[in-house]
């Protein structure tokens, strides 16, 4: 049985014929991951992951805990740089430029990618200060521009109507769902190209989750969104493409509709039908 498992995992990721636009189309690709390996010390966390991420659509990463989906996501804006003993191999490009090139400006890269974390992490500042934090680190002091950004971002994050009267109050007084939408507002305030979301709803109740999902739906088209989720219903609701990962390997990648109705790999089928994971 162990041998059979290894065979399944070692097989290259499955792309169905209908997924040709995901696999082949070059011009529609925002982020291109090619043969990407990653080690934490001696243990390998990602094994030869290759996936082109389509521009302007929502791509979901699903898989059981510890399968490497968050690790992959955090490699995209080099958040993993903070970890000691990390080693990578392979390439990852954003609009054709290698993210891991030695001369790349990591801060500039992160400015092009907003990120939303698993737990809402507003800063201990006022709501408005939270939203304009990306501009503040750029040294923007133009009050009109800041005010305009606050409104635009909060409207974009569907939070404006709830907080417009208390922008000067501490962001820590907001509810969990509001805090997470504030973090989304903060992520889009810097006008990024890509939005990385690391299980953005896992700490929220169903109503707040529904609001965030609705928001993701509204944001599609403006941003390339990569969302990691544990929740398969969520993946099927919000994403256009879905990648299924297991034990550090990309098992199957394709259109969400097809993955959930007609998966090619047996592991994918087992996972989405709830047989394990």
């Amino acid at each position, binding site marked *: 049985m162990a041998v059979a498992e290894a065979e399944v995992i070692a097989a290259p990721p499955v792309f169905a014929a209908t997924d040709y636009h995901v696999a082949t189309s070059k011009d529609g690709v925002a982020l291109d991951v090619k043969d990407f390996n990653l080690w934490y010390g001696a243990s390998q966390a990602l094994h030869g992951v290759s996936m082109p991420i389509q521009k302007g659509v929502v791509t979901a990463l699903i898989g059981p805990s510890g399968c490497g989906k968050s690790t992959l996501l955090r490699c995209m804006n080099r958040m993993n740089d903070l970890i000691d003993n990390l080693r990578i191999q392979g390439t990852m490009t954003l609009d054709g430029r290698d993210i891991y090139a030695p001369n790349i400006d990591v801060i*500039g890269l992160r*400015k092009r990618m*907003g990120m939303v*974390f698993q737990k809402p992490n507003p800063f201990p500042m006022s709501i408005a200060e939270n939203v304009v*934090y990306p501009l503040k*680190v750029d040294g923007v002091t133009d009050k009109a521009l800041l005010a305009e950004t606050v409104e635009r971002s909060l409207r974009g994050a569907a939070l404006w109507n709830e907080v417009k009267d208390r922008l000067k109050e501490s962001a820590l007084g907001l509810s969990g769902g509001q805090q997470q939408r504030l973090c989304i507002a903060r992520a889009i305030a810097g006008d990024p190209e890509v939005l990385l979301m690391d299980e953005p709803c896992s700490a929220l109740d169903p109503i707040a989750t529904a609001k965030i999902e609705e928001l993701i739906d509204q944001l599609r088209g403006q941003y390339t969104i990569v969302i990691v989720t544990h929740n398969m219903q969520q993946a099927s609701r919000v994403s256009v493409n879905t990648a299924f990962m297991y034990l550090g390997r990309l098992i199957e990648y394709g259109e969400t509709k097809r993955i959930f109705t007609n998966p090619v790999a047996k592991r994918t089928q087992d996972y989405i039908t709830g047989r394990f994971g």
Partner: protein
Amino acid sequence: MTTNVSVNAPVVVPAAHIRVRSFRSDLSAHGEPFNWALGGALAFGIVLIVGFLLLVFWNGISTFYPKPIEVIRTVDGTSVAGSVRRDEVFRLPTAQLADLPPAQQARIRADDGYVKRRLVQIGNYDLYNEDFRWVSEYQIESVSTPPGLYFIERVEWGPFVGRIKQVSLDGRVVAGEALTPQVLDRAHGEARDRWWRLRDLERGDIGTINHHLDEERLALRRLELRFGQGDPRIAEAARPIQERIGKLQAEYKVVADQVTAVRQADIRNTITLTDVNGREKELPLSGVTRFVAANDLGLFGKLGVYFGRWWEFLADEPREANTEGGVMPAIFGTFVMTLLMVIIVAPFGVITALYLREYAKQGRIVSIVRISVNNLAGVPSIVYGVFGLGFFAYLLGGGIDGLFYPERLPNPTFGTGGILWASLTLALLTVPVVIVATEEALAAVPRSMREGSLACGASKWQTIRNIVLPRAMPGIMTGLILAMARGAGEVAPLMLVGVVKLAPELPIDGFFPFIHLERSFMHLGFHIYDVGFQSRNSEAGKPMVFVTTMLLIGLIFVMNIGAIMIRSRLKRRFAGSQF
């Protein structure tokens, strides 16, 4: 997984069921004995601390309350007058016992040779060469508290206990019996005004003139250093300086004449005192700081004296080898030094901790540095004092003197102990506390906050400045509070780097540059040591030890409360940030 258990297979039951666990829980499992032990340890600690505070506060608070003056007639016909400090029982040496009359001998022998005696503060040091006297019970004939006795606090020689015989006001003599309190108060007030006027003239006007004269003298010395001794150019350049010196000397003459005039008025107002044995003492009225009619005062009169003494203690300078007067310079010195220490240690410790925690690659070297920093906290503080004296005062201060104050040499300016060097030494002493606390505070900042900031495109430094440091500030403040409490109570190193017994000049005054960090200063902690163990009469200094201790505890308490209030304000900003 491999064994398929058939439904019909017989279930194997062990022959005898052995109970592994007991369902009772014994005493140690309940944990009560540990509760008692822990609670007992806490109670013991609290009792010790409260007992200590009660001792200090009771003695400190009661010190200034006027006590009645008892007149004790002794069997040999003399009298002893004064306030009783305390009673004690002691064993009479047999040689002394043998000298006593047989009846008394028998009584003392019945008490196993023990005798009671009382310590009386008799004052009148100038008459008897002692401030305190032990009076044994068998010497006492009678005890009374007659009216009309005064406890007179003086500028010199300590208190006088006795009566007022007469007051001589500009040649007009008023006898003690005819003296109304109003007349005495007015005459005394005027005399004290003259005394203060004299002090102002000497300290203020003459002090200023001396300061300027000193500057001119230094300017002359600078010229000599620039041109070389005996150079003809000196005379040319020195002419304006000499003119200014001449002008200052003329000013000095005017002030000196004023001083003489006030002095002459002062010595025409004298007071003659007699003690209970009829010995007389004449002194200028201005030499008396306070008359306390100890046996005649009502409650309000006594309270007036009590608060008057407190005010003198807090606002005045020390007298009589620090056993009398006030401790204002010491309060000020302690406060300024502690504040300066915090100002120095805060950036020093925080920057070190920031580097260790945020920038340095965590590894063997950083571990060694961290362990060394922790060990620094265990170095005896006197060693820091020696280091401060050698490195700060002699090396750094000597260097500064050579560079900037060559004209004052060989008199050191910075090259000796001073408040700056003391603050730096204490900062060095307390920096481990700040580093450890700051590192803990930095480590406690959630990773998600840093990641959130970095993901927004902030650089590492921007993240630290905008997110990490504000968030860690309450923890850093805790470290500073601990450092402050430790530094304010430290005495040993200060004795080497700038604390002195008496420093009438405060480190801050009206002369440019207003803050004189090179000056030596007084410190409450050292004051306690000095009064308690280095003064002429430890019995006289004892109450002052308690009062000064109380004051030092109070000062540290107030500074800590201030810092804690700042910290809780900072903390409130982060309320509700936990999930």
